């Protein structure tokens, strides 16, 4: 009896080790290639393969939806995920590991931007093919990318700066509405604003301006929160920012010009997947640059000990203001993108439920970390979609999960980890 259990634990230990070495030897490019092959496989044989397994169609979200709706299909769904995703990714990643390591090493002889673009291109191809299967997937992918941007922008304030801000739905609303007004007023024949002022064909070139306007309006809104609350530390920001969120919501509800509580619709559909992808990549790049500079690190110094930061020449007030406005700016941009993905906004979208969702993403993923923001945003939005069939129970399961994370990893899954692009894309050492 004892011998078998010892043997069993030995086997699990060995398999753990072998999985670890297996994972650690594959460079990022290998994983991306594996994912690309898997997605291509699904693209070409996904539907017929699903039919043979007895599934109605190719699984739209890794089988989560179907499992909850029709539990007797679980074995088929598991087989589908295993054969379409996990096995191809694993096999391709493992078998291409040594070639990919060499290739990545060669790529690094050129300027780094070159291999970054190749990685991003491959990542985009994966996302594109995956979301090409259905409109639903396309929406999920775009919401996920926007969620990454929102989470990252809130992580600057709640993670890097260590304050507790609740005003993000307000910033999202400001960004969404101001960008919508800009595009609808100028380029769309609309019930509220009348005829378009400019021809719609040149519109897409003005879309970046709309996004920036959304961001700037949100930043101006942030100023209204920051000026009274950054004179002191502590709970003031949480209270004032919560008030701000409600003020923005009721302001929009009572503003008939933008449709009041009925909302504002008919935004042009310029926020396609490549546009959202590019915006999110840009946001990650700029925010990561910022938090890794000494000016960004000053946020951590202010959080950990403001008196010491001041005594070491750090202009603490300016640091806090900049970070807060910067975070609000990206929230505004995300809101503007969101408005053009959904193509309809109403003030009810930006209430305390939205706040709970964003906070869950930040605290689930991990404070003070770009990885954490990405993991948290993707994880919670996928989970939210996957649990959609459970309707109300979704809002019991997600908070429960959050409580578990808070108990076992109080700062989130991947907290306090630097997002170093150079380390991420370099070849992995192959152990002998």
């Amino acid at each position: 009896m004892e011998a078998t259990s010892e043997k069993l634990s030995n086997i699990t230990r060995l398999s753990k080790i072998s999985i670890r070495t297996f994972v650690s030897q594959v460079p990022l490019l290998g994983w991306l290639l594996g994912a690309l092959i898997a997605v291509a496989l699904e693209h070409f044989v996904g539907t017929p393969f699903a039919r043979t397994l007895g599934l109605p169609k190719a699984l739209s979200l890794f089988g989560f939806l179907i499992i909850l709706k029709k539990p007797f299909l679980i074995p088929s769904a598991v087989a589908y995920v295993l054969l379409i995703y996990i096995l191809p990714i694993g096999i391709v990643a493992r078998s291409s590991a040594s070639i990919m390591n060499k290739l990545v090493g060669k790529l690094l002889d050129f300027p780094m931007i070159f291999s970054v673009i190749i990685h991003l291109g491959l990542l985009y191809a994966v996302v594109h093919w995956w979301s090409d299967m259905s409109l639903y997937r396309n929406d999920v992918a775009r919401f996920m990318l926007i969620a990454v941007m929102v989470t990252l922008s809130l992580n600057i304030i709640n993670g890097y700066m260590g304050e507790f801000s609740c005003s993000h739905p307000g910033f999202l609303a400001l960004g969404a509405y101001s960008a919508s007004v800009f595009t609808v007023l100028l380029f769309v024949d609309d019930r509220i604003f009348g005829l378009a002022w400019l021809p719609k064909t040149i519109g897409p070139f003005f879309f970046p301006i709309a996004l920036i306007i959304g961001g700037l309006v949100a930043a101006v809104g942030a100023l209204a929160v920051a000026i009274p609350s950054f004179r002191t530390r502590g709970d003031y920001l949480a209270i004032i920012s919560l008030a701000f969120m409600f003020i923005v919501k009721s302001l929009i509800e009572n503003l008939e010009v933008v449709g009041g509580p009925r909302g504002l619709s008919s935004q042009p559909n310029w926020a396609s997947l490549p546009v959202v992808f590019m915006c999110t990549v840009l946001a990650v790049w700029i925010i990561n640059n910022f938090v890794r500079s000494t000016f960004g690190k000053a946020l951590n110094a202010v959080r950990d000990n403001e008196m010491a930061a001041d005594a070491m020449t750090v202009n603490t007030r300016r640091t806090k203001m900049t970070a807060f406005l910067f975070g609000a700016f990206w929230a505004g941009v995300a809101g503007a993108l969101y408005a053009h993905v959904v193509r309809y906004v109403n003030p009810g979208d930006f209430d305390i439920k939205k706040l709970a969702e964003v906070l869950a993403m930040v605290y689930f993923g991990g404070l003070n970390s770009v990885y954490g923001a990405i993991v948290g945003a993707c994880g919670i939005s996928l989970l939210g979609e996957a649990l959609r069939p459970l309707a109300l129970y979704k809002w019991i399961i997600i908070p429960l999960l959050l409580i578990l994370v808070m108990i076992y990893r109080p700062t989130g899954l991947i907290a306090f980890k630097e997002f170093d692009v150079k380390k991420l894309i370099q070849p992995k050492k192959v152990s002998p």
Partner: protein
Amino acid sequence: MSLLEIDRMTHYFGGLRAVHNYDLDINPGQIRGLIGPNGAGKTTIFNLITGIYQPTEGKIFLEGSELNGRSPHEIASMGIGRTFQNMLLWRHMTVLEHVKMARYSKLSYGLIGAFFGTARRHREEAESEEKAYYLLKRMGVDQFADQIVINLPYGAQRRVEMARALSMEPKILFLDEPTAGMNPEELVQMMEIIRNIHKDLHLAIFLIEHRMKVVMELCERIQTLVFGEVIAEGTPEEIQNNPKVIDAYLGKETVE
């Protein structure tokens, strides 16, 4: 011209007079000491000079320019570096990040550089890192550079704090009980470090200390503070033999 000059500084916490008519005059390159029993107002004087509190009365000048009314980070950038009695380190940051952070006011790449990673930013950050490494090596803690600061042994943390204060290239360094909690061996090392940085950088140092050995060996002139008032000022010998100081602070048995 004197480096740091304080003219009849007085400070009240509500109705409590913490510091009364305090005068100070430090010349460049001088080591000065401030001793006194607990609660005498020594750290309050540091906090008043560095701008954490504003004095109720009196003027403070650094190289002729007035410090009253300025914020702590401005005063720090003007050339006053300091360490804290209870070591205010940033618990989630690495040793290297600590020392680089104190060069905040020396960086000029601004937000554009921070957002877009310009060439200027890379140059300035690299230069800052090089200087930080030099200071860490000098303090003998460069092997900890990439570690989170709270994982370091106590003595090493003290040195990191000192390296951080030096990293801002101050004209005068305020040390608030730099040897508190150290064992005799660490104490000797710390005194050696203070002596060395004073000699090599020709830095003025203003020291609060409880250990007589440290103050008596290092300082050129010493002030004794009791209940916010200077009761004696002079060379170490004069202080040691001053009956008022013996009575109020040193106690009879210290002087044989």
